[in-house]
């Protein structure tokens, strides 16, 4: 149920690129303020499409998408940019921007400079000393953090991230999750992240499990990721177990 603290509300959303081949079917869910949500599913399940609809990049054919209680399509581009930001999976470019130049683009939706500075945003993601470096000199994990700093400067309360953990070493995956959780606690940002790694899904408070454009489960990962749900979503016979220390592992 949507409430006063609901930021994003999907109500019976349908979407397809081609007629008669729906990618997203009758999808309803909501995102509460300050939540840390994992959108989990196999490759091709429609995670990226859901995030693009939520970011206003794609428009739902049917159903409603509300941002802070108002139709997402009713926002002016710049006004929407102050409320939500979308970070795509691939962040490559071959023009040599510096770290600081990219972070400062977070100010583009504003005429009057908000209180946070580029230096402070970079400090929050631990990259203050790399401000003047070309972004191509940074590692994959550091590049992600640069874009998160840009999002912080953008001031968007809702951050949609498409597979940011893919292609990162485990060290950077853990670092990135810790950073996002810390930013959620300190600055109150809400995160919705697409991912396909079941281990990483255990780090989220709530997951939305999708298959072929439909939600097949939502709730805490311990509850949702049952043996049956894993079989349905990923076509695999596996089980999430919790050990004595409270850690989780996948038993195949």
């Amino acid at each position: 149920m949507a409430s006063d603290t609901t930021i994003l509300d999907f109500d019976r959303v349908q979407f397809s690129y081609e007629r008669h081949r729906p990618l997203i079917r009758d999808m309803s869910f909501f995102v509460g303020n300050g939540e840390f949500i994992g959108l989990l599913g196999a490759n091709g399940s429609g995670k990226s499409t859901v995030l693009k609809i939520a970011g206003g990049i794609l428009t739902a054919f049917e159903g409603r998408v509300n941002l802070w209680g108002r139709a997402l399509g009713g926002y002016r581009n710049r006004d929407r940019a102050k409320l939500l930001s979308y970070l795509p999976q691939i962040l490559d470019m071959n023009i040599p921007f510096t770290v600081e130049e990219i972070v400062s683009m977070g100010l583009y939706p504003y005429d009057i400079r908000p209180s946070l500075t580029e230096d402070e945003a970079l400090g929050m993601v631990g990259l203050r000393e790399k401000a003047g470096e070309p972004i191509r000199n940074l590692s994959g994990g550091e590049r992600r953090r640069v874009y998160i700093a840009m999002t912080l400067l953008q001031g968007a309360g809702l951050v949609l991230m498409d597979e940011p953990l893919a292609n990162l070493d485990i060290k950077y995956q853990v670092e990135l999750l810790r950073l996002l959780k810390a930013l959620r606690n300190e600055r109150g940002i809400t995160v919705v992240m697409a991912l396909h790694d079941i281990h990483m899904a255990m780090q989220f408070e709530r997951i939305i499990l999708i298959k072929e454009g439909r939600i097949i489960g939502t709730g805490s990962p311990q509850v949702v990721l049952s043996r049956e749900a894993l079989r349905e979503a990923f076509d695999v016979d596996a089980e999430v177990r919790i050990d004595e220390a409270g850690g989780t592992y996948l038993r195949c």
Partner: protein
Amino acid sequence: MLKGAMKIKLSVIAAAALAVCAASLLVGPRFISPFHMSGLEKEIVLSIRLPRMVVSVLMGLGLGASGAVLQGVLRNPLADPYILGISSGAALTAALGIIAGLSFWGIITIPLLAFAGALITGVFVGAMGWKRGGFLPERLLLAGVGLGFLFSAMLMLLMSVSSDEGLRRATLWIFGDLSIADWSVIPYGLLFIVLGFIIALYRAKALNALILGDDLSHSLGFSPGRERFILFIAVGLMTAASVSLGGMIGFIGLLVPHMGRFLVSADNRVLIPLSAAGGGALLCVADLIGRTVIPPVELPAGIITALIGAPYFLYLLRRRDVLGI
């Protein structure tokens, strides 16, 4: 936005550009001292060298800024109005207009035809290079080079069926010979280039965001399709004006933005004016070299820019990060 070190670099570059412009007025087959000018020397400066300098600065300005915008819009550091066939498209429609004697909008007819040619070519090359929601660098390049060949062949065909005098002028014009520059063409070129430059500068933030990709630029509050269209108009105006002023000159739009990013900044709010100034200065230098290196023969400036630019283009092709392969 402008930091201390950047201000110093920009001041040095501006001073160098002004020095080059001054040198192009004074240096030539005959050196003219600014302190002791005879009546004849004044006439040479005002009627020959000054319009030539103004035309080369305007052309270089348009081509340099166009290169910066194109490289950003297409997310491709190899983009340049000449390499992508946009200059050839503009030249072809302009030549068609000249040969057919079209003048339905008066003296502005030819620049407008060149603008239409530039715009149609730019959109066509962009459409050929677009696949799965993004531009593929190698497809863009091949489409541009292929169209460039086609348009050049059609231009040659037009020239071979035109009169002798027309052929000589057209040949010089195609190779970017500034010796045919005079005051009459300047106002229209100036109008188009200033208009295109203002549009490009006004949308410089959007251009920065487009470089990050369509999805991120949308996330930052821009409409990527709309911004690309506006920026293509700016490129079309500036390239058409350059071609109408002095023909096809290549590689200015490729070289100058790279130098600007290396020396100062990739931020288009700085890079577009910097590339414009650098393009103007570079074309002035190329013209100066062309008319002084083997006197009394004058080499078209386009040949000099190609001799500098083509090897740099080949160097860029070998860099791993440019084509993403």
